[in-house]
Structures are given as C-alpha cells and as structure tokens.
C-alpha cells in the first residue's frame, strides 16, 4: 500500500460520508413542513457535507504530493458566511409571520427584526 492508495481510499470514504449527509439534508428539506424546521436542513449540508467533500479533495491532492490548502480557506469562508445567510432566512420567515408565536424577550424589549425605530 503506497501513500497514494491509502489517500485514495480515505478520500473515497470521506466522499461517501459527505454525500450521505448532503442527501440527508435534502431529505430534511423535502420532508419537514414548516419554514423554520426546513431551515435546519441546509445548516447540516453546509457544515459536515461540504466539509467532508473538501477533506476528500485535500486528501487526494496531498496523496499526489502537491498539497493544497485552498480547501481550508473554503471551509473558513463557508463557516463564517453560512450563519449570516441562515439568519437572513430566519428574519424573512419572522417578517412573513409563518413561524408560530414567538416568545417575548424578557424585560421591556422587542426582537430587533420586529422592532419599530423610535420617532424623534
């Protein structure tokens, strides 16, 4: 077994794991019937699904002796931007009002999505 063979098998395994989690995310997106629960499916695809595909890409490139670190950057950028897009989806759902009753924040406050700016 050369390093290249081991890297190929490891890459194949992580491709399979990543593909499994992506398909579970897609099933979740189709199966759930409320907007907020549907929002949970893409977060899973975005973290471990894409993460395992990128690990496979790194394993192949290191197995061939030409290391690549771009994948680490992709993971870093993805992990910093994915919560922002999920947050915007949630804001849209709250604005459209199809999210069930929201709990009231403690104290005399409002959620910032629904807060009215003070007139002065």
């Amino acid at each position, binding site marked *: 077994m050369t390093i290249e063979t081991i890297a190929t098998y490891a890459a194949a395994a992580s491709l399979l794991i990543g593909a*499994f*989690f992506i398909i*579970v*995310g897609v*099933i*979740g997106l189709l*199966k*759930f*019937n*409320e907007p*907020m*629960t549907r*929002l*949970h*499916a893409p*977060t*899973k695809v975005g*973290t*471990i699904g894409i993460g395992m595909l990128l690990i496979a890409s790194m394993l192949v490139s290191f197995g061939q002796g030409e290391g*690549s*670190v*771009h994948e*680490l*950057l992709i993971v*870093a950028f993805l*992990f*910093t931007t*994915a*919560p*922002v897009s*999920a*947050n915007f989806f*949630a*804001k849209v*759902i*709250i604005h459209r009002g199809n*999210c*069930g009753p*929201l*709990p009231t*924040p*403690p*104290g005399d*406050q*409002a*959620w*910032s*999505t629904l*807060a009215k700016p003070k007139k002065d």
Partner: protein
Amino acid sequence: MLMRAYRWLLPHPYLTAILAIVWIMLQNKATAGMAVFGLILGIIIPRLTSIWWPDTPKFRILRMVPYTLLVVWDIVVANIQVAWIVLTVPNSKLKPAWIVVPLDLKYPEAISTLAGTITLTPGTVTADVSDQGNCLLVHVLHTHDPDAVRDDIKTRYESRLLRIFS
C-alpha cells in the same frame, strides 16, 4: 508617541495577521514576496475599514483554539443526531421549539461568534437578537426539554466565550 503610531497603523493586529495568512494560503505556496504583499494588504485593509469598526474587544487568541476544536466536535456529533431525527422522526412527532437565551456577553463581536456557533451546530438556528442586545432567539429542531438546550448553550459556549473575550 510610538504607541499612537502603532495604534494608527495596526488598529486590529489580529485582523492584519489573518489577512496576511489568508493571502499566503490563497497562493498555495509560501514565498517571501507573497508574505510581504499579504502583510501590505493586512495593514491597508484594516486601516481603510477602521471607521466602521471603532472598538477593539479584548481577545485571547490562544483560548480560541480549544473552543474551535470543541465546536468542530459538536458539529460532528450534532450532525449525526440531526440525521437520525431527519430519517426516523415523523413530522407529527417532531417537537420544534423557540428558546430565549439571555446573554452575559456584551461585545457585539462576541455575540456574533456565539450566534454563529449556535447556527453551525445542526439542530439549533439563531433567528434574532433582542433590540437591546440582551438575549438571543434560537429555534430548536427537536427537543423535549427546551430549558436544557438553553442551559447547554450557556454553559458550553457562552461561558467559554466570556473567557475568550475578557
């Protein structure tokens, strides 16, 4: 005088370092020229954007390392749990819940880090923050005990973030 020049040139030293490292990683090979160019970018960009980012919170970067490892581990574990929920729990038995997480964190940067962590771990999504910044609105996919989820977030992530941003 020297200190003021340092603050003027490097308003966010960690941002400078991160930008330089990202630039070198984008080239995929570490050469001296690329390191110098990355450092130039890392000085110019924080300088030009510092008016939109006036405060520099205290930040212990070494404590960020165990926190990152913990979050990656939690992402893996939570992914398996959520995959199990997606594949086995029917819609009628699903118990989604809204929870309110009161915040002890004060810096906006720390609150965004906590909100991002909550969203990245599958099963919980941060939906909103209260207008005074005192609590987060979190949606949980499936739970029988919403208070336990809230306490878990507070003890597992927020207490660590309080020590990082202190």
